[in-house]
C-alpha cells in the first residue's frame, strides 16, 4: 500500500482513501485530498518535510506523517 509520502518528485498518483484514524483526516478531506483526486509531489522543504502537493489547481503543504495517511491507488 503506497502513501502520498512515498511519491517521488514530479510523480503523480490518484488518491484511493484517507486513513480515518488520523487526527487530521477530516481537514485533509476538507482541503481537497479526496479519493479519486490526482495529486503530484511538487516540492518539499530542505528537511524533506513538509511536502508540497499539487491538488485541485493549487499547492498544499502538509507534513510527512499527514501525507502518510493519504493512501494511493
Amino acid at each position, binding site marked *: 500500500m503506497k502513501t502520498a509520502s512515498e511519491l517521488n518528485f514530479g510523480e503523480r498518483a490518484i488518491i484511493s482513501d484517507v486513513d480515518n484514524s488520523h*487526527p487530521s483526516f477530516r481537514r485533509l478531506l*476538507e482541503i481537497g485530498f479526496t479519493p479519486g483526486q490526482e495529486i503530484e509531489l511538487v516540492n518539499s522543504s530542505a528537511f524533506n518535510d513538509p511536502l*508540497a502537493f499539487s491538488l485541485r489547481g*493549487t499547492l*498544499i503543504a*502538509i507534513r510527512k506523517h499527514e501525507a502518510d495517511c493519504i493512501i494511493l491507488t
Partner: protein
Amino acid sequence: MSTTSNEKLHLITLVGPPNSGKTTLFNQLSGKNFKTVNYPGSTVEYSTSKIQSKFGIDADLLDSPGIISLNPNSPDEEISVNSLYNHPEFGSPHLLITTVDVSQISRHLLLCKQLIESGFNIIVALTMNDILAKKGFEVDENKLAEELGCGVIKVDGRTGRGIDKLLTCVKPKLNDDVIDEIKVAHKIFENISKEKLLNLYKEIERIEKNVIVEIRNNNFSNLLQANEKLKILNPTLKYGSNRPDARTLKIDKYLLSRRWGLVFFFLIMSVTFTSIFWIANPFMDLVDKLFGYLSTSAAGIFGYTWYSNLIADGIISGTGSVLVFLPQILILFLILGLLEDTGYLARGAMLIDKPLSKIGLNGKSFVPMLSGFACAIPAILAARTISNRRERLLTIFIIPLMSCSARLPVYTLLIAFLTPADKALLAGIALAVVYLSSILGSIVVAAFINKFNKKIINAVDSSSFILELPAYRVPKIKNVIRNSFENAKQYIYRAGPIILVLSIAIWFLTYFPNHSPEVNTKGLSQKEVVQLIKAERLSTSYAADLGKVIQPVMSPLGMDWRIGVSLIAAFAAREVFVSSLAMIFKVTDEDNLQSSILFAMKDAVNEETGKPLFTVPTIVGLIVFFIFAMQCLSTVAVSKKETGGWRIPILQIIIFTSTAYIFSLITVNFLRFVGF
C-alpha cells in the same frame, strides 16, 4: 422581525476560503482599502464598513476571516464560523457574498455548498477568472447559478469589473419582504462525517465538470495549442484547469529548491532585518532630535516652574519615547506585508516547519514569531492561526523573547555607550549579536518548556501542518502601505497612552515631594544652581525612596537604585527605560536626547560604592537583562486574554524575569572577574 432591526441597516457578510480574493472585493465595495494578504488565515480581525454610496445600496459590509469549511479547525476558525450565524456585534447577516477562486473551483465550492445547505441567503462572486483564462478555461456562470440555485457573478477585485453586476444582483435580495422570509441558518456541518464530506465533494466535482468550459475566441488556436501541451504533459488529467499556476511552479523551483530554499530563506530574512535598521535609523534620529528640540523650547518658554518641567520632561519626552521607534515598526510591517502579499510567507512557514517542530513549535509559529520582532501584541494575536492548542500556547509563551522594537531604543543607547561614536559598523555588529542571542535564547527556552510541556503549557494535542501555498502575485503596494500605517496607528493607540501615563508617573515620582529644595547658591552660576537643585530634588524624591527599597537586589549587579527605578518603570513598557533614565539623570536642556543621556551616564557615579555606575559589565548585564525579562504590561494583558487565564502570563513573568536576573548577575560578575 423585531422593530429595532428595521432601523438597523442590512448586513452583508463576505465569506470565503483564505486567498479567494475576499478582501480585495471588500476593498472594492467599501472603497476603503483594507488588508489584502496572502498568508492563509491571516485576516484574524474583521473589517467592516458601509457599502460605498456610489453603489446606491445602504448596507453594512463585514469582511470575515477566511475559512475552509463550516467545521472549524482552529480557535480562529471557530470564531469566524460562529459569528457567521450570529455576530456578537452585527447580528445575523441578511446576505452572504461568497468568494470562489475559479482556478481552484472544486476546493472553494465546498464552503459555498455548505453555506447554501445551512440555509444562508447567498450570492457567489467568482474571482481569479484571469488565472483560469490563462489556462484556456472559463466558468459558465449561468450553468453554475442553475446548479447552485443562487446568483453567480464574475468579478475582478483589482479592476472592479463585475462589481456593478454583483450589486444589481444584491439589491433585490435586500427587500424587507424577502428578508422576513429568510430561514434561520443552522449549524449542520460541525463534525461532519467522512461519508457526507465525500458525497459533497462528488457533487461538487460533477458541478465542476459541468461549468468549466474551454474559452473559444480569437486566440482560439493559441489556447488550443497551450491546452494540447498541457494534455501531453499531463495525460491523465482531464482538465488542464486543475494545474497550479505555471509561473508559481517555476518560481518555486528556486525558492523551494531543496538545495537553495533555505539559503534564499535566510537571505530574505537577513535583508528584512538589516533593512529595518538601516532604513529606520535616519528617521529615528529625526524624531529624536525633534522631541529634544521641543522639550528644550518648552522649558525655555515656561521657565523653571513645576508645570514647565511636567511639560518638557513628562509629556514631551514621554511622547517622544513612543514615537521614536515608529519608523521601525512601520518599516517592519511594510516588509512583512510585502512578503505576505507576494505569497512567500506561507513558504517560509513550510521551510521552517521541521526545525520548529523539533522544539514543539509549528511552521505556522513562524509568522507570529517574526511579528514579535516588531511588537509582541499583534504577534500573540497572530498565533490564533495555529490550530494545535499546545503549539499555539508554546508560541505565545516564547513570543516575548523575540526582541521587539521597544527594546531597540534601549539596546541602541546601551550599545552606543559601549562603542565609539564613529564606528557605526561595530555598533551594528553588536546589535546583530544581541538579536542572535535573543533568537538563540528563545530556542533554548522553547526546547526546555517543550520538554516539561505537561507541567508548564498543560495541553496535549496532536500536531499538524496543513497550509496552502498561494500563487505568487505582484504585491499591491498601495494596500501594503495603507495596512502598515493602520498597524502602526493601532500600535500607538495601544501602547501610547500607557507609556505616556507612566512617563508622567515617573516624572511625578522624581519631582515630588521636595520639588523646590533649598540649596546653597553661593558662587555658583545659574546653570550649576539648576543642576544642583535637580540633583537635590531627585535624591529626596519618592523615586529615591522606592529605589532604596530595591537597592539590595540591584547591588549584586553593580547597579544602584536609579537603574533599579528605571527597570521598574520598564516593566510597564520597555522603552520607558530610556526616558526614565533621561528623567532620573535630568537630561532636558540638550538638543539630542541620546547623546545627552550618554553624557550623563558617563558622569554617573554609583552612590553606594563611589565608582562609575555605567561600566562595561553593568551595560552588558543590562542588555542581557533586557533580552530575557518579561517587561511589558500590555503583553501580559494580551497573553492573559489569548491563553484564557493567568497561568501562562504569570509563568512568563516568573520564568523570564528570574532568568534575566540570574543571567545578568552571571554576566556582570564574570566580566568583572575577567577584568573589565
